[in-house]
């Protein structure tokens, strides 16, 4: 991929981000009042909705500027851009990295779910060991020792000392 193609790929990602930002800002106008409270509540010239909607409006404007400028730059860029082959290439080149990132997030979610259900010492041990493995460590003895010692330290600090109700 030459430089211009790389730039085009980046611009495509910018456009996606722009769309995300706009969806957030426009979405605010639909979700700012989930309890259907009447807007007159509040005194002093501002209601509970004034501030968030003002910020959402500003974000919409800024988001539009960002999206449009990225879009214009994208169109001006003369290289070809094939989404599917780009994704295939990116995954091929960065497989390990993407796997690590996704794995970290999933591991964190599982760990969060385990807190409170499984004994903290055990869940932390499993988390640490799995994370070490995920990050390409294969020195199993060191990993095990650190997992156990680390969980012990965490237990002492958070359960015993800080008395968290886990």
């Amino acid at each position: 991929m030459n430089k211009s193609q790389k730039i085009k790929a980046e611009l495509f990602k910018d456009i996606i981000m722009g769309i995300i930002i706009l969806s957030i800002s426009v979405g605010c106008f639909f979700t700012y009042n989930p309890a259907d409270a009447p807007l007159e509540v509040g005194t002093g010239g501002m209601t509970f909705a004034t501030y968030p909607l003002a910020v959402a409006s500003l974000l919409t404007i800024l988001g539009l500027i960002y999206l449009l400028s990225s879009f214009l730059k994208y169109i001006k860029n003369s290289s070809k851009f094939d989404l599917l082959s780009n994704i295939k290439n990116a995954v091929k080149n960065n497989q390990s990295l993407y796997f690590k990132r996704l794995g970290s997030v999933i591991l964190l979610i599982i760990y969060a779910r385990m807190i409170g259900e499984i004994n903290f010492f055990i869940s932390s041990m499993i988390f640490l060991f799995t994370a070490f493995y995920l990050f390409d460590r294969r020195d199993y003895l060191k990993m095990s020792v650190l997992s156990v010692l680390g969980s012990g330290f965490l237990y002492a600090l958070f359960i015993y000392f800080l008395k968290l109700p886990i």
Partner: protein
Amino acid sequence: MFEGLIGGFANCFDPINFTLLFLGTFLGLLVGALPGLSSPMAIIILLPVTYSLEALPALLVMIGVYVGTKLGGSFSAILLRTPGTPASACTAIDGFPMAENGQASLALGYATYSSFFGGLTSWIIAVTCIPIISAVALKSSNADIALIGIMGLVMVSAFTRGSMLKGFIGVCIGLLIGSMGMDKSDAIERFTFGSLDLLTGVPFAAALVGLFGFSVVLSDLSLMKTTSQLITEKFKIELPSFKDFCKRWRAWSIGSFFGAVVGAIPGVGADGATWLAYGTVKNNSKNPEKFGLGEPDGVIAPETANNGTTGGAMVPMLTLGIPGDASTAIMIGALYLHGLQPGVTLMKTGAEVVYGMLAGLLLAGIMMFVIAMGAIRFFVYILRQHRSLLFPFVMVFATLGAYASYNEIFPVYAAIFLGVFGFLMEERGFPVVTIVLGVILGPIIEYNTRIALQVADANWLTFMDTLPRIIILGIIIFLVFNEIKQGLIREKLSKTK
């Protein structure tokens, strides 16, 4: 006053008091360095332990923790870009790049010097100008706080490298995140999506730990193969000399100024002072483009401001019974529990304890300096470990820090979500720091603006009612024009490239 202080110092040198103060400072440094754990949390844990102590020793422990966490939070901000406390978030902007450049010990050293210096100057100002500080605390009202908050926000482009547009988008997103939950004035839910967990919004510690901690881990995973250590091989423990520190007088004098002035204003405190100090130092620096890449002034300014708020926060607590921040609020509760009555008469009825606390504040600063300087080697050693060893621990600490904010699991999920979101935004060039700025300052600005308007009966001219407000407004307008000018210059430069 003077005799009172001498008596206070004498009390502090009592072996038990001295030891307790030392232990508190040590604990504060340690707890502050753990990502996600804050000073109020540490003090609350120690409260039951202090019940069996007399009033002064109990409060000395708390003061030690208070002072210690202010620096400790910066250690994790510099080494892991996961600030221990919100006030340390600003230190991460230049502190973390310094660590990545192999200058971790330098950054930690500057942070320690700055914290000590900030604490010292704020102490001197506090004890010599008690009436002035009390007056500032009392006279500053909601309109002033709102304007100060806006001033901090406007300085946002001080934190953006490159596109000002992206900086402001980040701030807006931060402001929206900060407004989730029941609003402070009417208790009406906003953006809760019908969820009970979101009824009170995204807890602050979760936002901090997610946007800074988790997103750093996700993005730095890409570096795991290329460099085998967080610091390059060529590193050595290089501590700044006293002369080096003195040379950067602009940074620490601006930091102390903001710490002393803003610190006395209850409700803004360290969270506002650090950002204002950083922004001002950057704007007035000879090489502003270096900020954000590892410029020592970018560590000195917020650190000095951070500890510089301690004196300003304690004086209103002792003279008026008004807490400057969450930690001093807990100390007020502790005073009641030990048979004292905080309020306007405490200086008279509890003089011994008051002077002891003031003396303890200074001593704690000195102890913090000594302990921290010695501990830098230890911290840097930890940092030398491979990322694959460090990151799992960072993730666990961040998870538990988020959990501890509300003692429930939801903040952890919020932190993970924000971590992924922050990572994606940073990939597209949006500095996560601006989002954090929005989350910190947003609620302060909204709440204070609304109260100011309610007190003034919807009269917006109240924001120009007093001289300080006019001055702040003037600064804001000046800053806005300055940012636009700088933005245009940057556009021109990037076009000519």
